[in-house]
């Protein structure tokens, strides 16, 4: 694997940025505590069959990991603006290795955020068989693929000035309509809309705890379709940005 050392340095410099880490990991944790604290005894949250501690553990993890994945975009936009990307383009680092390093770093951030929330969940009494923990993590990792692609696409399309508001607003809206702050119920406009979003299925990874496979066929189809579409968009954005005009 080329660019292994490059990836290692990329990880090192990301995990060294304390302020960035504190904000990325701190917000979902604080919200989790604020939401679950008052209703820690709730075992059937709005008839979902899930405890509040479990439901919000996964929904906060979904939001935290989504934000972590998309922070990839802000980092790419920043490096483009500073001219570092041009410098990289005259090194032997291939575009593939470059993107791989970025995505690996974003996943490392996302999985760290998820681990912290799972630890908080366990502290609030969430207990699941090992197999279900693994299934849940697996679904979250898959559901993050579209967001990795979206992060790359935004990073190469947006400027440093525009990407902040887009990401802040975008993730808040996505989280809202995907059932991050409260369960959406089984019907209604919001429910139907959410079914078509990859972020909804990220939240729905907690369905593993109800037995069964976690996602319905629709869930898999929606996540994979978004992954494919956004991957094409990411490649387009990357090519357009680095085109030798």
């Amino acid at each position: 694997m080329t660019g292994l050392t490059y990836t290692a340095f990329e990880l090192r410099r990301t995990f060294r940025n304390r302020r960035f880490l504190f904000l990325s990991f701190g917000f979902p944790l604080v919200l989790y505590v604020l939401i679950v604290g008052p209703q820690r005894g709730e075992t059937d949250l709005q008839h979902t069959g899930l405890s509040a501690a479990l439901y919000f553990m996964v929904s906060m993890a979904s939001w935290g990991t989504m934000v972590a994945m998309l922070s990839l975009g802000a980092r790419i936009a920043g490096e483009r603006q500073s001219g570092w990307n041009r410098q990289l383009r005259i090194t032997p680092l291939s575009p593939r290795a470059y993107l791989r390093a970025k995505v690996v770093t974003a996943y490392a951030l996302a999985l760290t955020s998820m681990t912290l929330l799972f630890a908080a969940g366990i502290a609030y009494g969430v207990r699941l068989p090992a197999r279900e923990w693994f299934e849940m993590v697996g679904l979250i990792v898959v559901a993050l693929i579209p967001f990795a692609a979206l992060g790359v696409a935004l990073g190469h399309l947006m400027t440093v000035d525009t990407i902040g508001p887009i990401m802040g607003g975008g993730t808040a809206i996505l989280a809202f309509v995907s059932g991050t702050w409260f369960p959406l119920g089984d019907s209604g406009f919001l429910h139907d809309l959410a079914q078509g979003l990859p972020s909804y299925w990220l939240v729905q990874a907690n369905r593993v705890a109800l037995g069964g496979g976690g996602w319905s066929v629709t869930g898999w189809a929606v996540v994979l379709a978004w992954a494919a579409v956004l991957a094409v968009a990411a490649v387009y954005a990357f090519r357009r940005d680095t085109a030798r005009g």
Partner: protein
Amino acid sequence: MTTGIHLDRLVKTFRTPQGPVHAVRGVDVSIRPGETVALLGPNGAGKSTTIDMLLGLLEPDEGAVHVFGGPPQDAVAAGRIGAMLQTGMLLHGLVVRELIAMTASLYPSPLSVEEVVDLCGLEQVADQRSEKLSGGQAQRVRFAVALVGNPELLVLDEPTVALDVEGRHAFWATMRRFAARGATIVFATHYLEEADAFADRAVLMAHGRVVADGPTTEIKARVGGRTIRATLAGADRDALSTLPGVANVEVRGEAVVLRCSDSDAAVRALLDRHPEARDIEIAGAGLEEAFLELTTAPDGGAATAAEATA
């Protein structure tokens, strides 16, 4: 065509809302391996655009670039090119030594990180974060990043632009040590003295064209010879202007300035007819003068000059 660098009739036009900008209009330059070439010209001459095409960052509208027998992208992928671009901050979050090591890891046969730290005079700041450096220090780190890959071709776009005089001297001292390894070096500058002192050859650009290309000494000679200064009591302007090889005469009191097309003939005749002339100085035209004369010619003049060089 398999060795060295060939810029073959490069043309590049940018579309802007104000209409097309003809940044480069027919640049033709060949550089031999091991040569140090200065790309010299005022702002807007097309130096940076030419360098971007040389590095494969920009595709020419017409013409072709060959670096070591192939397209520049191949040479970049093989790690044979190192470059310091004009704009470009350093990656944040790493200390200087790590940044150099990270870059080194991308190349097949890099220099050792310690060697580069030493070569670029970065011992003092090697453990500092890149975002904490002064402008001059950052510039030296950018240089270290450009050469740590041990490139066969080193390209520098205005490398000393952020440096003070002392920094500039230190920079060129480092460059000399690196050049001694035999790399080919191409650098853009608008400091004439840098081209004069450091390059084997200067390529003068103006208005997107090459207006002169040759050893710096030859370029100076191109703009007409030398100047004789002397002290001569009772100098007669008309008499002096009849001396052989003299093109123009200035007389200020006892000070005489003769601009010559043939200073050898002129000085012999001067001493022959005016043996009392003293304090005689003969100076070559500065590259500065050559530069002004060659680059301020209007468009048509530049084209003629380019044809004359071709």
